[in-house]
């Protein structure tokens, strides 16, 4: 076993897959010499040369080049820097990349990975902080992962690169800046897309939390334990396909569900998870489902406002107490 950071996990995953398969290429803004703004691709250009491509600020061309090279035999990874930047090339994602296979009658494959920073907490203001999970979940043909630990990040990114379908990887800047580490095995491993992970077992309330929120949920669980309330923290890890079974099984045990998601509440991932449980497991619920999300506003700049905007432990504890009180 050895210990790695989230940043190192991303770098190792891409490095190992590029070494393993010469068809894997990486393109993005600032990926060659800078290794991307947070440095997760450092050293890859020196190692893989022309397979690492700097693009201009051209998200639609980047996505087109991704889809076109994927369909013709490469396994491209494209770095679309921040969550809101996906909007620039959204029709390229929602049409060219993810609908074309269907419209060819299944004749063409699009093995491509989009890697994107998400998350507030760094005073990056309204355009560089979003977690656009919900909008991407409404994209048939796309798989989505949002790893919350270095272990999951490495394993899921490796799976994403090997996947024969387009995969969106969301990684939260807060997890990178936190310097958190995971123990990982010395031998190679992957994490399967579509499998949730119970990050903490409990018996009174199921909390489904995504990305950075997993850690806030665990912190809340530690505090509530002192009050005799036991939270089970389920990390879906993949948002598409969603591991409904693990979530519903946990709700079967606890009878209560809170979803913690760093998005404005409307049309969030939390909305979809709530709808699924209400539709498929209503009889297992002893109380209404609660969503702990951000308010339906843009993300503010000032640290004081941003703290108020982001869902935190206190918000979750309040919701749990309301449910159990």
């Amino acid at each position, binding site marked *: 076993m050895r210990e790695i950071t989230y940043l190192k996990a991303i770098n190792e995953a891409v490095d190992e897959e590029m070494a393993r398969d010469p068809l894997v290429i990486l393109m993005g803004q600032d990926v060659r010499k800078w290794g991307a703004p947070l440095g997760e691709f450092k050293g890859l250009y020196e190692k893989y040369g022309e397979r690492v*491509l700097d*693009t201009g600020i051209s998200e639609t061309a980047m996505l087109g*080049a991704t889809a*076109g090279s994927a369909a013709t035999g490469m396994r*491209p990874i494209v770095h679309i820097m921040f969550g809101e930047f996906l909007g620039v090339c959204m029709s390229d994602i929602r049409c*060219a990349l993810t609908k074309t296979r*269907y*419209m060819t009658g*299944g*004749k063409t494959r699009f093995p491509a990975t989009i890697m994107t920073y998400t998350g507030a907490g760094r005073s990056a203001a309204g355009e560089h902080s979003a977690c656009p999970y919900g909008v991407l979940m409404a994209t048939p043909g796309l798989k989505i992962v949002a790893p919350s630990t270095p272990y999951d990040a490495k394993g899921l990114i490796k799976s994403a690169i090997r996947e024969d379908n387009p995969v969106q990887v969301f990684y939260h800047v807060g997890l990178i800046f936190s310097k958190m580490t995971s123990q990982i095995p010395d031998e190679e491993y992957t994490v399967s897309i579509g499998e949730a992970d119970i990050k903490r077992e409990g018996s009174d309330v199921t909390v489904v939390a995504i990305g950075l929120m997993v850690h806030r949920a665990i912190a809340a669980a530690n505090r509530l334990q002192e009050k005799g309330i036991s939270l089970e923290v389920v990390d879906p890890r993949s948002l598409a396909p969603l591991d409904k079974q693990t979530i519903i099984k946990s709700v079967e045990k606890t009878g209560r569900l809170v979803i913690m998601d760093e998005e404005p509440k409307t049309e969030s991932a939390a909305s979809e998870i709530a709808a699924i449980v209400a539709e498929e497991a209503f009889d297992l619920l002893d109380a209404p489902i609660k969503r702990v999300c951000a308010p339906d506003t843009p993300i503010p700049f000032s640290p004081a406002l941003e703290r108020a905007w982001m869902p935190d432990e206190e918000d979750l504890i309040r919701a749990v107490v309301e449910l159990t009180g």
Partner: protein
Amino acid sequence: MDMEKARLIDMYRMMVRIRAFEEQVAKDFADGKIPGFIHLSVGQEANAAGVCANLRADDIITTTHRGHGHVIAKGGNKYPLAPLMAEIYGKQTGLNKGKAGSQHLSDLDIGVLVAEGIQGTALTLAVGAALTAKLKGTGQVAVAFIGDGTLNTGRFHEGMNMASAWKLPLICYCENNLYAETTSIYESTNLTDLTARAASFGVPGVSVDGNDVMAVYESASEAMARARKGEGTTFIEAKTCRQRGHFEGDPQVYRPREQLDECLKKDPIPRFRNKLVEAGVLTEPEAEGIHREALAEVDEAVCFATESPYPAPEEVLTDVYA
């Protein structure tokens, strides 16, 4: 005419087949036999035929909603029309199992990567195909067939710039048929020479008579040679015109009658036929034979499409993921 006789006749036959196919589609759509909507390239066939006559089987093309001709031309004269017609009819036996229709016909087995209804994506996906060719060193080229309207999209600028910066083996072949849907390119830009756009990307810009199949062939041939030698991307503006509306049923109120008359006079098929007959490459009876064969082939395609079943409802759920 320097070109070998077989190739000339092949290009003529290709134009005739595309015309016969599309005129049949127009008729069947008007008769309510084809669902959705239809965009035809009648009058523009010289472009598909002249460009694709240069291509290797493994070269890649992309096209748009007006793409029937490009698919047929890339497939060659032996490529069967029946699965194409069945696709346009929405049948299970269609090229894309009834999930594409007229606007999105594609067949990567013959190098047709995609037919895109969102403008500019045909170019950016071709950039990706050209990137694969360059990285793998296959010697393939990619051709993006786009329309004049695409020149005003962001994707055009981003795609051309990327292709040029990376020196990709790509030909951006713009069929300037004078109208983006119903709006003249000369009203939506301040340019009179569309090849001026090419200079801003640092690639050669070539203008060609898109109703002269020989001129199309030659300009495409030069661009391909550049691409295959590793000299990068070329932009070709082919001046052509649409004999029909933007879509079938378009009353074309925006179009002056004289402009349409002039377009009909420039019909590339009789023009090439006369040239071939004058040069002694083809006799009139031989030319008639090619027309008859094309009509018979299209008749068979219609029979196949008509007799084929619609897809079963379960097919809705297949082909989303690999």
